């Protein structure tokens, strides 16, 4: 049996002990001395039902919930008392049902509120995550924009430097060409002069007096030296052209080992004696990058390394190593130069920060380097000890 408002209420629920105490004596009086009350099953709730008593059923719905009994009351009095009691019981059952239903309804309403609350909390949580997501997406896009802008800026800067270099290379190549060809023609002409050596007469005398033997020999030497100089100029121009990469301004696959070699070649010409380069390169996968930028990056770091050794005032070595793993490419450039203090390391990547005397450098080296690395989604870090040396570690991710 459920305890819902709609259960079939029993007489003892409707008439509790206290109300029985109140109506019992009154009914006994009305029914002239003898009166008993039983529940539907005949169980006495008041008095002792006697065998010869008149009996009136108490019907609230369809069946008797109890009986009113009296052996003293006349039939009319008993049925009048029954009607009175029924009126009382009806009021009681209405009250009981209504209050029980009210409790059930309140509990139901409370459940609804809880459900509603849960639903609201859930949707609030959803909105919160959504807004957090949006925030992080916006931030990512802003970061991306900034990165793109940085790349663009670097690309433009390098492109203009590259254009300048290309223009210069072109301008130098022209005179270089005719100077080289003139020099070789001139050498042939000198050969003609040499034929005068075997001539006789006053010419032979003049030859001796003017010591043309020496001049002829020295001229050939000078011409060879000049030709060598021209070769060097030609190579520098070629390197400059390759380095500036005007023809490679867009992204392409490149082997970073080649870029390292190229940068070292650029640097070697201005590297004083006593400073050596040591390569320790393992095969690398080609990555998509802006080779011009990468060259500039390596050039800046390597030049710093060379300058650091120069500052130490002793011979030294720049060790360049590279290797690849699942995540990407690792490059280390280590020098045995003066090293950096903690404070210097902290400021190293700031633009215009330099440890060199005013005029010796603008201090854009590492700042540019970091920009280039970041534009390639890479990482750059510094490790240094004063008087021992500096290691720059670079990482470029490779797509999985």
């Amino acid at each position, binding site marked *: 049996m459920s305890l819902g408002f*709609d259960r079939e209420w029993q007489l003892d629920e409707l008439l509790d002990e206290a109300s029985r105490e109140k109506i019992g004596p009154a009914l006994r009086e009305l029914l002239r001395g003898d009166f008993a009350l039983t529940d539907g099953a005949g169980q006495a709730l008041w008095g002792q039902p006697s065998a010869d008593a008149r009996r009136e059923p108490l019907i609230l*719905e369809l069946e008797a919930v109890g009986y009113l009994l009296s052996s003293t009351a006349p039939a009319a009095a008993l049925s009048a008392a029954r009607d009175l009691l029924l009126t009382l019981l009806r009021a009681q059952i*209405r009250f009981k*049902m209504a209050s029980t239903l009210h409790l*059930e*309804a309140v509990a139901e309403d409370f459940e*609804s509120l809880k459900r509603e609350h849960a639903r609201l909390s859930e949707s609030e949580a959803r909105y919160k995550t959504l807004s957090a997501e949006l925030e992080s997406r916006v931030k990512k896009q802003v970061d991306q924009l900034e990165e793109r802008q940085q790349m663009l800026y670097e690309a433009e800067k390098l492109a203009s430097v590259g254009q300048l270099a290309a223009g210069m290379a072109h301008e130098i190549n022209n005179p270089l060409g005719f100077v080289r060809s003139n020099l070789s023609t001139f050498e042939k002409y000198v050969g003609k002069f040499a034929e005068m050596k075997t001539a006789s007469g006053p010419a032979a005398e003049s030859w001796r007096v003017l010591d043309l033997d020496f001049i002829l020999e020295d001229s050939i030497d000078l011409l060879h030296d000049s030709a060598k100089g021209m070769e060097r100029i030609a190579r520098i121009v070629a390197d400059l052209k390759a380095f500036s990469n005007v023809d490679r301004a867009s992204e392409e696959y490149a082997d970073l080992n080649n870029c390292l070699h190229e940068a070292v070649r650029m640097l070697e010409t201005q590297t004083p004696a006593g400073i050596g380069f040591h390569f320790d390169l393992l095969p690398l996968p080609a990555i998509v990058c802006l080779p011009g930028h990468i060259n500039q990056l390596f050039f800046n770091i390597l030049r710093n390394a060379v300058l650091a050794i120069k500052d130490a005032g002793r011979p030294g070595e720049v060790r360049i190593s590279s290797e690849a793993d699942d995540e990407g490419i690792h490059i280390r450039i280590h020098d045995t130069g003066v090293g950096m203090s903690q404070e210097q390391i902290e400021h190293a990547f700031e633009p215009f920060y330099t440890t060199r005397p005013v005029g010796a450098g603008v201090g854009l080296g590492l700042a540019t380097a970091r920009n280039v690395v970041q534009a390639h989604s890479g990482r750059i870090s510094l490790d240094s000890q004063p008087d021992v040396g500096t290691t720059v570690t670079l990482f470029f991710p490779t797509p999985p």
Partner: protein
Amino acid sequence: MPESDARHLSFKLVYYGPAQSGKTTNLFRLHDQLAPELKGELMTMETKDDRTLFFDLLPLGFRAPSGLLIKFRLFTVPGQVAHDGTRKAVLSRADGVVFVADADRAQETNNGESFQSLAANCARVGLDFEHLPMVVQFNKCDLPNAVPEAEIRERWSAAPWPLVFAVALNGQGIESTFELLLRAVYRNFGEKLELLAQHGLDENAFVAGALGKAA
């Protein structure tokens, strides 16, 4: 499932529907029209301006050939939107439902909302709406702006429940609504309760007993 013991079987039948659709009037008419073996008084709980605040209750009953006393307790819910908690509590443990809709065209939205709340509340109180014995009654068909029967039939053609068009004011369609519900209840519970096998009641005898008419 109906409440039962060895000698009693009690079905709870609930008249559900939007405010003022005529649920209480349905019970009044049944009280007047039916003459089963046992018929209790119609208990109308507190009302305010004639609108049900808690519920109305009409008890009916008859005795099966086996001696089993079969009781029907007909309840109405309060239709006003504000009393949803009470509506749910009254609906709990129902064995069958009459949905009393208001045929007045102006009440179409209220009917729709009330019907949806019936489905939702069934789920909340653990009643299987799909298999709940139910009859849909369109009351107040006497109103000049009542939606025509054909239009309603057309709209409800896909629904599985029997439709009754009623005028509770004059009693039209009230008894047949109740009869259709009794038949649906018998078909749903008759076998499980072994009404025929144990108590000698077939569907017609069951209906006749409840309505108080010779089978």
